[in-house]
């Protein structure tokens, strides 16, 4: 999987590029809009990560130019504006996505992977498996080893989300928006409570722990 990263801030570019490489992507970087366009035209990328504010050519006009030339590479736009403008929001209709700065890398990675998945249209699995934990999406049953685990709907939704992202850290914000479809940050740590309930059911009675907390970042389900 090749990713084109167009970002003029060196620190952010390095942070994102290193993270994506560690996640198994091949990353090409460009520091301005024109260089980004040249790179995108020279070879096919599976996904592009673009800053909105770029020297020489801004991110949105870069997307326009790519689409005009028939290049349909899915794009993740990075915006520093808190109130995302309608043009950027409109990207979602076209299958692209956006993320506001500052962001957690885990979230950027999840979104990049979602874009790749959507573009490659991987067949939908019917069961998810991490180690000896199995989640059946059709019968909505969860088992670990021989033990059947009874989950409430929210717990099931959380486990499904974690199992769809095995070995990947997901942030509280991501969980909140996937499990409850809320986009704001409640003051009480609702996610903590749900995670500890889930942990109680899938981990407590077992020797090997699967659900781990990465302090300051989020949670990860690792086999």
């Amino acid at each position, binding site marked *: 999987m090749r990713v084109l990263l167009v970002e003029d801030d060196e620190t952010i570019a390095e942070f994102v590029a290193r993270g994506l490489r560690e996640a198994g992507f091949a990353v090409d970087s460009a520091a301005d809009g024109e260089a980004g366009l040249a790179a995108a035209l020279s070879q096919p990328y599976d996904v592009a990560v673009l*800053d909105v504010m770029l020297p020489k050519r801004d991110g949105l006009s870069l997307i326009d130019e790519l689409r005009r030339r028939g290049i349909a590479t899915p794009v993740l736009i990075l915006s520093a504006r808190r109130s995302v403008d309608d043009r950027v929001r409109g990207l979602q209709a076209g299958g692209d996505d956006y993320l506001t700065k500052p962001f957690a890398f885990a979230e950027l990675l999840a979104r990049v992977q979602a874009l790749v998945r959507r573009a490659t249209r991987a067949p939908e699995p019917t069961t998810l498996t991490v180690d000896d934990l199995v989640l059946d999406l059709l019968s909505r049953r969860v088992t670990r080893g021989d033990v059947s685990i009874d989950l409430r709907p929210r717990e099931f939704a959380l486990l499904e989300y974690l199992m769809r992202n095995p070995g990947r850290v997901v942030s509280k914000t991501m969980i909140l928006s996937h499990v*409850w479809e809320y986009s704001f940050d409640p003051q*009480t740590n609702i996610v903590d409570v749900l995670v500890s*309930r889930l942990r109680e059911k899938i981990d407590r009675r077992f020797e090997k722990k699967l659900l781990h907390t990465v302090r*300051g970042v989020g949670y990860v389900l690792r086999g």
Partner: protein
Amino acid sequence: MSSEDRPTEDGSPYGGRESIVESDTRLAETAHDSRPLSFGLRLAVWYSTLFVAGSIAIVFLTYFLTAESLAQRDRQIIQAKLGEYGAAYQRGGFGALAETVRAEQRAAPERLFVRVVDRGAEAIVLSQPEGWDPAALQTGSLRLGDGTLVQVGKSTEAREDLLARFRAVLGVVTLSIVVIALSGGLLVTRSALQPIRRLTDAVRRIIRTGRTDSRVPLTGGPGDDDAISELTTLFNAMLDKIEGLVTAMRGALDNVSHDLRTPLTRLRASAEMALAASPDVDRYREALADCVEESDRVLVMLNTLMDISEAESGTMELRREPVRLGDIVARAVDLYRDVAEARNVALAASVLEDVVVTADRPRLEQVAANLIDNAVKYTPPGGRVDVDVRRAGDRAILSVRDSGAGIPAAELPRIWDRLFRGDASRTERGLGLGLSLVKAVVEAHGGTVDVVSELGRGSTFTITLPV
């Protein structure tokens, strides 16, 4: 992207703003020099031109009518004389005519020019007052039965004298009319433009000083209706709004800079302590996790503060749509179910009558969530939190009742304040912004917030929204 690269675009609002103010000032000054004065002058000139033109027309008319009627009178005199002389001629021929003329000349002070021309074209002057200019004569003639022509001339000198004096008088009158009209016009327009000039001065003063708290005084009694008082009132109302915005922005900025210092100091302290201590991976990991959590808190606080000030200043973008209040409550209760259960607090919603309100859904969800968050947080284990939705007339009512410790009366008015945290809440996690956001968002929707509390018995938070 980095803000250092493009400070003028998004980095330094101050430089940009100052230059805008400067150019505005220049604009206002040049506008002042050319526009309001010349407008007044133009008005005065127009007014006096019309006035003077009217007056001059009347003067000319008077003059010509007078001159005409004087000439008419002379013509009548000449005709009368001609008739008289004709009769005398008929009676006694040329001799009688000459006698009549002579007799008249002896008697009458006004001399006439009389000439008789017979058929042989021989002119006989019967009367020729001395020093008369034959050119300045008004004449008339009568041809008698035998072909003799009698001519009578009357000097126009006296008439011209009279008219000349009349002209002089009229000239003086016209001149005074022009002067009066011009000065009157200037005076009238000046006084009429006075309120506009006051308004202009006030605007210029405000632009120059940046003080949005000055107001344009409303002058005039009750009879002083008019467009200008209305303009002044509207202008003041606009200043009120601007001042409100500026104050809110300034307040928000003060709050942000003040309240970000604390978490940033903690963040810095964590990093510094880790760097100063002996190298240890676990310690580093702890410190880094602290830093990430602290910066997340900064971000949440920043966003919430921005939301509050946007809602308070009326600049929050509300995507209003019909929303069932019952759905909002059901979702919020669902969000807090596990938390309430973990704290052994009974959380229940009862929708007596579902109400559809026109509101921004995510914002309203946040309002409901914050109220429930608050209630669950301050209710001791074994207590309960009840959320009600009902309708009262044209208001939708959402109330959250808890069986918590209640809020001391002294703290009640301050709970909606930004970053206010009551004594009881110090131990709880939170920013002290939840209720401020509730109030700001509800009021931005045209609703109200209220709280009733009894120490030891619990509190009830009620929000109403227009249906």
